[in-house]
């Protein structure tokens, strides 16, 4: 019997990381994720051989991650909007050097210093690269505290499997709320050995070089193409949730916190005789294009609801590929969309079309 614990989202991520064998954390405080940094301090400073550093900046933190990952450590950092922006150069280096790590972004309102309230305005930054050059992160979008746990563990596994940074893209609401969670048994053996590529002692082997750089365009192209082939493989890791998709009148696509709101609206719809389907992408990169494309064959209208000016809606339009009309409803600046707003939007779309 696995114990159920009541945990705050940010702390659940921290416990999940430690559960998954993460022993190195480098980070800088920023609201609304500071509890995670504090949790890692409490736990890791008591574990022999582990390391927690409150770094001098987010830039230093991501570069400590780069070093720790290069040395073969299971390593994590976390931040929110502005801090994630500061980490982008380092993330690009990690991707080029094919180093695994987990980066948590508990999104807050932006741009600029923005606000400290929940938002989803970092979707483009997270899913389209974020830093300079040709690369992607593996991006996972939880929508409950249990999923924060499960996807944090999964993020470490995927990062190692593809030797690519993985990001948990949550928001301030998920980080702050408390829900019961369970930690399933974690077999350490599933952490792959890094002995064949990590830096260390070169006794008995040739010295290794981790070089995210090549002045020869043909050589750099080879490096980038090798990274690109991983992204071609990634669609097999697609994960999503569908709700009420048997015979929907309209489909809503939403992730994270907004998907929770949509689930309330689905119940309202049932009472009012409107069948609202939900497709909730859990992996944002790779994006679940196929299931949305399939839905576009079946319904005339798809509504994308996001806490942004409209970012994921572009991927949904790509997925729908003109086969159904894609509408957008968003609130931004840290405003959480209410069920009433989505309900009114659904009725408006159905009445007009």
């Amino acid at each position, binding site marked *: 019997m696995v114990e159920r614990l009541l945990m705050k989202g940010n702390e659940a991520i921290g416990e999940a990381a430690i559960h998954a064998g993460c022993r190195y954390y480098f980070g800088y405080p920023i609201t609304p994720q500071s509890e995670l940094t504090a949790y890692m301090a409490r736990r890791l400073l008591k574990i022999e051989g582990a*390391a927690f550093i409150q770094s001098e900046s987010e830039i230093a933190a991501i*570069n400590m991650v780069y*070093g720790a990952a290069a*040395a073969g450590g299971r390593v994590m950092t976390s931040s929110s909007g502005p801090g994630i922006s500061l980490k982008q150069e380092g993330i690009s280096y990690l991707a080029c050097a094919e180093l695994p790590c987990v980066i948590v972004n508990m999104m807050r309102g932006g741009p600029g210093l923005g606000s400290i309230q929940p938002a989803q305005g970092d979707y483009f930054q997270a899913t389209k690269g974020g830093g300079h050059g040709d690369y992607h992160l593996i991006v996972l979008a939880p929508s409950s505290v249990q999923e924060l746990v499960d996807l944090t563990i999964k993020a470490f596994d995927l990062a190692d499997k593809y030797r690519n940074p993985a990001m948990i893209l949550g928001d301030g609401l998920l980080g702050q709320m408390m829900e019961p969670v369970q930690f399933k048994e974690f077999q350490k053996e599933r952490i792959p050995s890094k002995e064949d590529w990590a830096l260390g002692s070169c006794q008995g082997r040739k010295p290794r070089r981790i070089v995210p750089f090549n002045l020869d365009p043909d050589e750099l192209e080879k490096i980038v193409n090798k990274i690109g082939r991983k992204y071609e493989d990634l669609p097999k890791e697609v994960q999503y949730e569908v709700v009420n998709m048997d015979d929907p009148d309209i489909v809503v696509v939403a992730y994270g916190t907004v998907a929770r709101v949509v689930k309330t609206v689905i119940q309202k719809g049932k009472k009012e005789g409107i069948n609202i389907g939900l497709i909730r992408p859990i992996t944002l990169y790779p994006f679940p294009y196929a299931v949305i494309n399939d839905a576009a064959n079946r319904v005339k209208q798809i509504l994308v609801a996001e806490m942004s000016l409209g970012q994921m809606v572009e991927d949904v339009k790509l997925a729908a590929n003109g086969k159904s009309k894609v509408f957008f409803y968003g609130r931004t600046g840290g405003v959480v969309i209410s069920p009433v707003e989505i309900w009114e939007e659904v009725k408006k779309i159905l009445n007009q079309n």
Partner: protein
Amino acid sequence: MMKKVFARPKSLTEVPFTYCPGCHHGIIHRLIAEVMDELNIAQDTIGIAPVGCSVFAYLFFNCDMIVAAHGRAPAVATGIKRVKPNNIVFTYQGDGDLASIGTAEIVHAANRSEKITVIFVNNAIYGMTGGQMAPTSLEGQVTQTSPYGRDPKTMGMPIRMCELLSTLNSPAYIARVALTKPAYIIRAKKAIKKGFQYQIDGKGFSLIEVLSTCPTNWGLSPKEANEWLEKKMIPYYPLAEFKNVEEVS
């Protein structure tokens, strides 16, 4: 039968250096490699190459190497050392890297007294980008971006990193050396060796600043560059041990 009294250290690869004629990077590389040989640590050493001319350092040392983003080598070294505390970790950084874009990283790595060795190459100019002003460029020094000479009124005075870092309590060893004559080179090697030895002994952070020439961007011959360094740089950047944990009473 004659004995070899001077040979290429084993900790250097055979790859010819990519530096300009007379540039001191090559001497510094060799001194580090000799120290690695003498302490028998090459097999356990992880080096961090910076951005700048010496980004190619990863080609020259016979140990594991990684290239860091500009200025971030001390943070990268921190990450490596915390995962692999039994390995010897050194960074190799220029003046733009360490004293400008990476000022925060070096100050805080020193303050945490990370058990790493930092080789700081101060040649008072940006080399790879073609001769722009460095934080360590001298007052009045003409560079691409101080074409009328460095004016302290608007550009500040050159930063003395050893002195600045020596105000911290934690570092184990901080010294400034030069290479313009054999006596200096011998002293420089001793300082570098001490830096690595202190790391091996777990004493903490060590930094050796090496005053270095950049004949190409200074617009001088290697011989003139050595003279300029002695005449202009050493008076402003005194050669000394600024901090030595062994000598704390």
